[in-house]
């Protein structure tokens, strides 16, 4: 057999990841001003949007969270409303769901700050009721 994918495994990946990060997404929705809030603890420097975009692709964030951080088959939406950066960073280091962990060896605090800045800069979507393709 050349290639085999198992449905449930895929589903479980998606479900577990969704479950783990859904709280974060909910929090993001409730904290639209979170990006400007001052996160606690030792902070990385302010992120660079362009560098973050390159990293977002390079380290594979887009595979689960889709190209514009809007969420995909296996990962929830993470932008443009983002959780506070401390929580964003903590989750990347020690995810509780299906997301693979990124250590400082492969993704520095500076890298995370850059990705955070890029995710935060994603364009706001149009209002759903202005899109006839999404009419119920």
């Amino acid at each position, binding site marked *: 057999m*050349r*290639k085999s994918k198992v449905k449930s495994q895929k*589903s479980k990946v998606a479900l577990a990841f969704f479950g783990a990060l859904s709280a974060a997404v909910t929090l993001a929705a409730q904290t639209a001003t979170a990006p400007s809030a001052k996160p606690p603890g030792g902070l990385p420097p302010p992120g660079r949007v362009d560098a973050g975009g390159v990293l977002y692709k390079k380290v594979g964030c887009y*595979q689960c969270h*889709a190209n514009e951080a809007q969420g995909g088959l296996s990962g929830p939406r993470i932008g443009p409303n983002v959780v506070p950066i401390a929580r964003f960073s903590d989750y990347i280091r020690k995810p509780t769901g299906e997301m693979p962990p990124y250590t400082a060896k492969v993704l520095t605090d500076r890298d995370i700050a850059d990705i955070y800045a890029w995710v935060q800069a994603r364009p706001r*979507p149009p209002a759903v009721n202005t899109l006839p393709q999404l009419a119920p």
Partner: protein
Amino acid sequence: MGRSKRSRPGVERRRFLQQGALAGAALVAAPRVAGAQAAPPAQTPPPVMTHAAEGAAPADVLVLRDEERAGSDFMVDVFKSLGFEYFFANPGSSFRGLHESVINYGGNRGPELITCCHEESSVAMAHAYFKAEGKPAAVMAHGTVGLQHASMAIYNAWCDRVPVYVILGNHADAAIRRGPEWYHGVQDAAAMVRDYTKWDDFPWSPTHFAESAVRAYQVAMTPPMAPVVMVLDGGLQEHPVPRSERLAVPKVSMPVPPQGERGAVEEAAKMLVAAEYPVLVADRMARTPNGMKLLVELAETLQAAVIDQGSRMNFPSRHPLNQTLRARAAVAEADVIVGLELVDYWGTVNALRDQLHRTARRVAKPTAKLVSITTGDLYIRANYQDFRRLQEVDLAIGADAEATLPALIDAVKRLVTADRRRVVEERGTKLAQASRTAAEAARVAATYAWEASPVSVARLSAELWAQIKTEDWSLVSSYYSNDQTNWPRRLWNFDKPYQWLGHAGGGGIGYGAPAAVGGALANRRHGRLSVAIQTDGDMMYAPGVIWTAAHHRIPLLTVMNNNRAYHQEIMHVQKMCNARNRGVDRGELGSQLIDPNIDFARLAQSMGVHAEGPITNPNDLGPALRRAIAVVKTGEPALVDVVTQAR
């Protein structure tokens, strides 16, 4: 299959076949010599293939006599009696006799040959054809090289419990094989797929064939359904049979699917009616269009949450009780869960975390009562592990779920008192609100990255829905429609049994493109608009199916979800990269389909199909889809290549 009957000493095989099984034994005991008797020509057998005969000049009679007919003509009589409409095949000499009988004797109608470019495609087409039409189709292939090509697709059909009727050609008699037939000859052709087929036989006479052909049909169609294999000897196909020989075509007698035992069904009904939050989970439940109606009736009687896991079209996607978009939450809230033909009950009520060390946790409440109704309890094989992890349940009903639903509905209706009815209605109101909230969240989620290029899968799905929602449509294939995170399921209104045909079953890539053609072929007679959301990696397994669709004028709109990689595999490799702390920046190596990019529009155009693309601007998509649908409505296939985001 009894090997002993092929090695019975003293039996000359061609002669045995010539005379038919019923008369065979007597004739073998007293063999006649050609030309040494006064019998009329129609009764004269050809020379036996002895060493001397092999060196003799060819007989002067080289065509069938008026008093004879081909063995494969009788085979067509039997296949017609079984109602086969299509034979999917890539041509092969080991079944040339049957091939000729189908097109000439049978008139290429019922069954009609569908020319395929790969045996794996043949089987996948038959697989999806069944799910759209509810009738099996047959596949013809060589017993060796053809079956080897077909085996992956047979495995998919097996895992999906779909009947595909596989006919293999084989030349068993080594004394009369042509050169290539040695490569196509095999002692036990079906052995290769016996672990994932339900039954097979290698008949030795027309009568044996007729009985086995009917038996194979009955076995394949009895739940749990599965593929079967008939190996047809080349000699049996090609040798003459005297017209005077009366060969009977056995009547098909389909067993009734097993219904759950009455006491067990009543016990399940009591649990459901007493429950505060019952959840019905359906996977391969809806065998027929009536399955959806029954599940709707049961759910509405109970006002119970329903989760449709998608192996079949079990429940309308926008029904207020459909909680598929919040399946995990519904399972976590449940105090009674009834699984209806679940492929993976364990995975429904538990979660496996795939990290460096895999861990599992139960999602359902520890006190939740679990009921299972499935034919899976009646039939299991050892080698391939599609039976999944064992889930402890409180009540296991070994029966066909669809056949059991009427009794369960009756039992539930008898138990719902006025007090319980009030509870039931309150529950339904809450579920309807939860369903509306989930659907609205899905619509809002689709707005993100609306203008992005590459095109988001949500935008692709929304644009396609906008074009087809007023049509009588059928989504014949989409790899992303099997769970609650997929976009068609989140945005489209699936409310008819044929609007979703399930998925591959065994997870073998290469199913989607041929399945779309097979499903569209079934839909053609009903005038339905068949659409497929087609991944690029899958299409590259079997692009020849585009030609089959064009050649046979099968109307099908293929919308390429062209993300230029096997992205699921990239994710797996990235997970390994992370777990080993080596960085993920090389994780795409080996899984991308770039450099060069594949031009699917030109590929389709090369086979005579209307095609547009690659489309990278999402605003170009709607007009391209409209143009393609106009072509499909003329009875032709069309393809729109859309460059999409990863997943």
